[in-house]
């Protein structure tokens, strides 16, 4: 079977539905609505039109030769999801799920968010479609992404800071699931990544695979050939699966996912789930996760809120297990250096998440050497990260209040 044809609930040994019975009916309803929508040309056309006239699809590709000089002579081409409306790839998925919400007749949406990009995208879609919206965000993340909190509130969403557990993305997911269990009759959960219970990994992937479908043709048009390698950052893994998917059956194209290595994978402060985790169940699916001997989730760490997650989507776990994709860690420091390098050499400020893919690409380029072409998912822009970057690179004046 073609790798692209793999659908849920299981990807090899990974995936499934490890959820309270109270959620099964809602997951079934969503899955059935999605299966019907897939077969309905009107749904596909409406989504494509939103992509064109609202998101700004297709997103362009940009070759970055000045950056590529630091990558061993390989050609480096960026897929510019940072140019989408709301500033990241997250909008692709959110518009699809918001359309589905309307089809199943629900009036309220909830979402979890880490960096705030998925929350902003969901609040945006809720404003566009006139849906009530509540966003759960770990308190740690509301502090380091205060600008996105303000954006969501301006868009009319209620933002709930989550104070339980590690107060980051995983706890926001727990709280959103609790809300969904309680309010399932009126509420749809717009899940932000390719993790979680079936049908989310398959559905979110399908809404994101447009990234790779566009980019595959764009790279062929530019270079006359497929790329040597495709790279992306991996937290839950939605931009990565989005750009990988079109290439899964192109055996000659290597796929690399770069996980958040934090302060180093030999320390306790990282979020390199596939590199350092082992299979287990979290948030409704069996996949790799960071956990202790007793199966308690270990708190992850990354300078990037969007990658600060101790789990990963089951399709990535499967691609790692069968050897189709390779996953490597990138430290906070390497990501921040790559962020500055792209900014200084090309005038493009990437999100810190996407900077992990750039840092991994610099190393990969030196391994592949001249003649290689590397397609990088530039999943988001760095505006939201200015405070983090300003502190990291000491860019504020001394008298700045922070």
């Amino acid at each position, binding site marked *: 079977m073609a790798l692209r044809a793999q659908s849920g609930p299981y990807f090899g040994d990974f995936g499934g539905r490890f959820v*309270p019975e109270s959620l099964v009916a809602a997951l079934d309803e969503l899955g059935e609505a999605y299966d019907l929508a897939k077969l309905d040309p009107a749904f596909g056309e409406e989504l494509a039109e939103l992509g064109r006239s609202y998101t700004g699809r297709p997103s362009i590709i940009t070759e970055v030769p000045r950056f590529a000089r630091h990558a061993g002579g390989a050609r480096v081409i960026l897929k510019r999801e940072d140019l989408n409306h709301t500033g990241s790839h997250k909008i692709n998925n959110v518009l699809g799920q918001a359309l589905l919400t309307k089809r199943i007749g629900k009036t309220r949406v909830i979402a979890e968010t880490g960096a705030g990009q998925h929350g902003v995208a969901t609040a945006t879609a809720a404003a566009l479609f006139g849906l009530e919206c509540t966003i759960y965000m770990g308190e740690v993340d509301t502090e380091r992404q205060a600008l996105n909190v303000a954006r969501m509130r301006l868009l009319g969403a209620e933002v709930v800071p989550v104070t339980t557990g590690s107060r980051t993305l995983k706890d926001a997911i*727990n709280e959103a699931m609790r809300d969904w*269990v309680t309010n399932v009759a009126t509420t749809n959960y717009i899940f932000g990544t390719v993790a979680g219970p079936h049908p989310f990994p398959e559905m979110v992937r399908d809404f994101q695979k447009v990234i790779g479908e566009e980019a595959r043709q764009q790279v062929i048009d530019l270079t006359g050939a497929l790329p040597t390698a495709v790279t992306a950052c991996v937290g839950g893994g939605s931009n990565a699966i989005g750009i990988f998917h079109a290439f899964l059956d192109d055996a000659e194209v290597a796929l690399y996912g770069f996980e958040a290595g934090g302060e180093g994978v030999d320390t306790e402060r990282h979020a390199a789930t596939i590199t350092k985790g082992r299979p287990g*169940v979290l*948030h409704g699916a069996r996949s790799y996760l960071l956990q202790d001997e007793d199966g308690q989730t270990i708190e992850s760490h990354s300078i990037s809120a969007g990658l600060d997650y101790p789990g990963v989507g089951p399709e990535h776990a499967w691609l790692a297990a069968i050897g189709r994709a390779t996953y490597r860690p990138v430290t906070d420091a390497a990501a921040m250096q790559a962020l500055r390098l792209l900014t200084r050499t090309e005038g493009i400020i990437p999100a810190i998440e996407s900077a992990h893919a750039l840092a991994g690409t610099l190393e990969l380029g030196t391994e592949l050497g001249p003649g290689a072409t590397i397609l990088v998912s530039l999943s988001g822009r760095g505006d939201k990260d200015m405070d983090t970057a300003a502190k990291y690179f000491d860019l504020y004046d001394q008298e700045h209040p922070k």
Partner: protein
Amino acid sequence: MRTVGPVIRRRNDEAAGALVGYLPVGFPTLDESVEAAIALVEHGVDVLELGLPYSDPVMDGPVIQAATQQALANGFRLTHGFEAVRRITERTDAPVLIMTYWNPVLQYGVDRFADDLAAAGGAGLITPDLIPDEAADWIAASERTGLDRVFLAAPTSTDARIRQAVDSSRGFVYAVSTMGITGARSDVDEAARTLVARLAEAGAPASCVGLGISTAAQVAEVLEYADGAIVGSALVKALADGGVEAAGELAGELARGTRPSEVR
């Protein structure tokens, strides 16, 4: 082996039904959680449900989350669960079920977990985030060891899923009384009555209703139609606020609900 079915049947014969009491292991300390569980039984709780603290408890409300987070911070380990079961069953006759999220069992090893639970004198497992569809390993392990397995049924469950929950469970089926997470509510949902009727129609030997019960009157109301009433958050709150003695006292008060003449 001490299982829950006979106790629930006996309590329905001699009273209105069974009172099931929940407490997390290791809260506020391992010793106090053991003493509190024993106090519950001494004051009229018929079946114990011991929760294993877990880092990501999606079915728990704020009271139980706070308690289990404290237990984890105090160094809770899975082996403490087996130790608690052993110490409690040595000193009481009540059957003890473990309530646990699935990943800890998976990491311990499903067969090894079943063996160690049976060896400690435990009655079985309640698995809030394991649906029968994903439970082949646990069903096999519980068949082999004779442990009870309690799956959940919800008001939104289809008839086919209700049948699956009934066919897969042994001991009782856990009827989720509201579409919510755990936490005391002023009214136990009318939806529970319908759900229990549907479970009975599907052939459930016993159904216990949980999530939302906090008073003796609610226990009595639930036992009019269900075989057991499950109380969690209210007991944990009593333990948190007033210690072992307060938890025992609340259990005694709740147990009056199993004798309806006393609460009318």
